[in-house]
C-alpha cells in the first residue's frame, strides 16, 4: 500500500472514531473532494460500521463465542483468542459456566421462586427454569460482572428460560426495567405473550398485561418482533412500540418515559372520584430540590435535563402519592408556562393512578403539540390526551401522580415556570 493510501485509511478510521484533529480533518476533506474512490470508501466504511453490530449479533445468536465476554479482564480475553481453537472452545465453556453462576437475585421476603414445581422462599441464586412471582417489594436480577441489571416491579411474573451468554426471560405479566450492558455476540431477549424484545445494549422497559405489551426504550436500541409478525422492528432511544393481542404492532412513536412507580403504603383512604373545581399550580414557586424534580432551578425557571442517549429534554414533577396532583377528568385543562430555544414538539405525559387511591398505577396519557421557539403558555384539554401504555384508559377521577414535559432536539433548552391544572 502507498503512503497516500495508508494516510487515507487512517483518516477515514479516525473520522468514524470522531477523533480527527483540525489538520487531519482538512486533509481528509481535501482527499474526499478530489477522489471519488475515497468517497466510496468512506461511505462503505460508515455503512458497514452501522450494520456490523447487528450482523455480529445475529452470528452470535446462531453460534455463541467467547468474545461475548469482552467485559471480563483483558488479560483473560485476548490470549484466549490468540490461542488454539481447542483452547478457545475450552475457554468458552469456562466462561459460560462463570456467567451462569454470575446472576444474583436481589429479593425481598415476599418474592416466591417456583423451582421444579416447588414454591420456595426468596433466595439469592436463580437457575434456568425458575419462575419468579414478585411481591409488593419488587426484585432485581443482577449480572454483576457485565453490569447488566433488571428491575422487576411488584406483581410481575417472570420465568428464567435461559441463562449464560444467551439470556432469555419470559415476562408473563407486569413490568421490568432493564439496564443492559453491550452483549457482544451474546444476547438478551425478553419474551412476552405478544412478541419478543431482543436487546443489544440498552435501557428499556417492558410492560405486559392481559391485553397488550408496551416496549419503551430510553437508551440504545432493541428489536421487537410481534408474535404474529415475523418482521422485527428496531426501536431506538426515545421511542416506544405497542404489541396488541390481535397481533397488531404500532409504529415506533416518541417515548413516553415512565417515572418509577412508588410502592404502595397500603394506608391510603379510598376517596370518591369527584373532582373539586380548584386550581393546582406547580412550578418555580413550589420547587424544592429535595422533592425530586427532574429539572434544575436556573435563573428563576426549572430547566429540563437532557435524556441520555436520546433527543429528548425532559422535566418531571415529583411523584405525588397517594393523593395525586389533581384528578384526570373530561373538564381538565393543563396550562404550561414555558420557554424553548427552538421550535419543537412539546409532549405532556400524565401518570395516572387509580381513582380509589392505593398508589396503584393505572395508565399514562400523553398530549403533543408543535410549538414555536420563545416564551409562551400552552394549554391542553382532556381530550388532547391519548393513552400510551398497555391496559385500560384512565378512569374518570384518576389521580395524576406525576407529569413529564418533553421536547425534542433541536430544542435543547426547555424552561418551565408553571404548570397549572384547572377546569
Amino acid at each position, binding site marked *: 500500500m502507498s503512503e497516500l493510501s495508508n494516510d487515507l485509511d487512517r483518516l477515514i478510521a479516525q473520522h468514524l472514531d470522531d477523533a480527527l484533529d483540525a489538520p487531519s480533518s482538512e486533509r481528509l476533506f481535501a482527499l474526499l473532494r478530489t477522489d471519488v474512490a475515497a468517497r466510496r470508501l468512506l461511505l462503505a466504511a460508515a455503512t458497514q460500521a452501522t450494520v456490523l453490530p447487528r450482523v455480529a449479533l445475529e452470528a452470535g445468536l446462531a453460534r455463541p463465542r467467547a468474545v461475548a465476554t469482552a467485559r471480563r479482564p483483558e488479560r483473560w480475553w485476548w490470549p484466549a483468542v490468540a490461542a488454539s481453537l481447542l483452547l478457545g472452545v475450552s475457554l468458552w465453556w469456562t466462561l459460560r459456566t462463570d456467567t451462569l453462576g454470575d446472576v444474583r437475585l436481589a429479593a425481598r421476603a415476599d418474592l416466591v421462586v417456583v423451582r421444579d414445581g416447588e414454591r420456595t422462599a426468596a433466595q439469592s441464586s436463580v437457575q434456568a427454569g425458575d419462575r419468579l412471582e414478585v411481591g409488593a417489594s419488587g426484585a432485581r436480577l443482577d449480572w454483576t460482572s457485565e453490569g447488566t441489571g433488571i428491575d422487576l416491579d411488584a406483581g410481575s411474573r417472570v420465568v428464567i428460560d435461559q441463562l449464560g451468554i444467551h439470556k432469555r426471560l419470559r415476562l408473563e405479566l407486569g413490568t421490568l426495567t432493564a439496564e443492559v450492558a453491550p452483549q457482544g455476540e451474546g444476547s438478551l431477549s425478553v419474551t412476552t405473550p405478544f412478541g419478543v424484545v431482543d436487546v443489544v445494549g440498552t435501557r428499556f422497559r417492558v410492560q405486559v398485561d392481559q391485553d397488550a405489551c408496551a416496549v419503551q426504550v430510553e437508551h440504545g436500541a432493541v428489536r421487537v418482533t410481534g408474535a404474529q409478525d415475523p418482521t422485527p422492528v428496531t426501536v431506538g432511544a426515545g421511542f416506544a412500540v405497542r404489541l396488541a393481542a390481535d397481533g397488531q404492532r404500532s409504529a415506533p412513536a416518541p417515548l413516553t418515559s415512565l417515572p418509577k412507580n412508588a410502592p404502595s403504603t397500603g394506608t391510603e383512604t379510598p376517596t370518591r372520584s369527584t373532582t373539586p373545581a380548584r386550581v393546582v399550580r406547580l412550578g418555580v414557586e413550589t420547587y424544592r430540590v429535595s422533592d425530586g424534580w427532574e429539572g434544575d432551578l436556573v435563573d428563576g425557571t426549572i430547566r429540563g435535563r437532557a435524556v441520555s442517549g436520546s433527543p429528548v429534554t425532559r422535566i418531571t414533577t415529583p411523584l405525588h402519592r397517594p393523593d395525586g396532583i389533581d384528578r384526570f377528568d373530561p373538564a381538565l385543562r393543563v396550562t404550561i408556562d414555558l420557554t424553548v430555544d427552538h421550535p419543537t414538539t412539546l409532549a405532556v405525559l400524565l401518570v395516572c393512578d387509580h381513582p380509589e387511591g392505593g398508589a396503584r398505577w393505572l395508565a399514562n396519557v400523553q398530549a403533543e403539540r408543535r410549538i414555536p421557539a420563545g416564551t409562551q403558555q400552552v394549554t391542553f384539554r382532556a381530550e388532547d390526551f391519548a393513552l400510551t401504555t398497555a391496559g385500560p384508559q384512565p378512569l374518570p377521577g384518576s389521580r395524576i401522580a406525576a407529569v413529564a414535559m418533553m421536547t425534542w432536539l*433541536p430544542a435543547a433548552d426547555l424552561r418551565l415556570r408553571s404548570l397549572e391544572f384547572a377546569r
Partner: protein
Amino acid sequence: MGVPVDQADESSGATDGLDQETALRCVLAQEPLLLGFLRAIVGSRQVAEDLFQDLVVLVMRKHAEIPNAEAVPGWTRRAARFLALKALEKRAREKPTMDETLVDLLEKTWIDDGEPEPDPYVAALVRCRERLPEHARELLTLRYVHDLSCEQIAAKLGRPLNTIYVTITRLHRSLGECIRARLRGDDV
C-alpha cells in the same frame, strides 16, 4: 415532492401522501443505509443515531408529503442531508466539519453507485464477514460491537494506534469489494 427544508414548519396538510405507519416502516427498513450515510458525514456514531431519530420524528410529521413508498428513499436521503448539515453547523464551532459542497459530493457518489437494497446488502455483509480471518472478525467486533474506540483497542491489544486505524479501514475496503461482488452476483 416536498423536501423538509425546515423542521419548524407545520405539516403541509397534504392528505394524498403516505400514511404514517407505511412511511415509518419504509424509513426503518432503510435505517442501516441512512445511518451509514449520516455517519459518513458527521463521523460520530452518537450524532448519526441522534440525527436518524430526528429523521424519524420528521417523517412522522411530514409523511403526507411523501407521495408513495418508492419516493421514501429519495425523500429521506434529502432529509438526512438537511439534518446532517444543520448538525454540522453546530459542530463547526468545535471542529472543522464537511461543507455543503462536500456533502453534496458524497450524496452524488452514493446515488451514482446505486443505493443498495438493505436486505441483500446485510445478507452480503454477513457472508463477507464470515470469510474474514478470525483475528479480523475479532477486531471488527471490538470496534463496532463492543464499541471500543481505536485508541482503546490499541491499548487493549498493545499495538500502535496507527496500525489499528489502517487495519480497520483496510478491512472495510475488503468487505466493500466482497459485498459489491456478491450484490453483482459474482462468484466470491
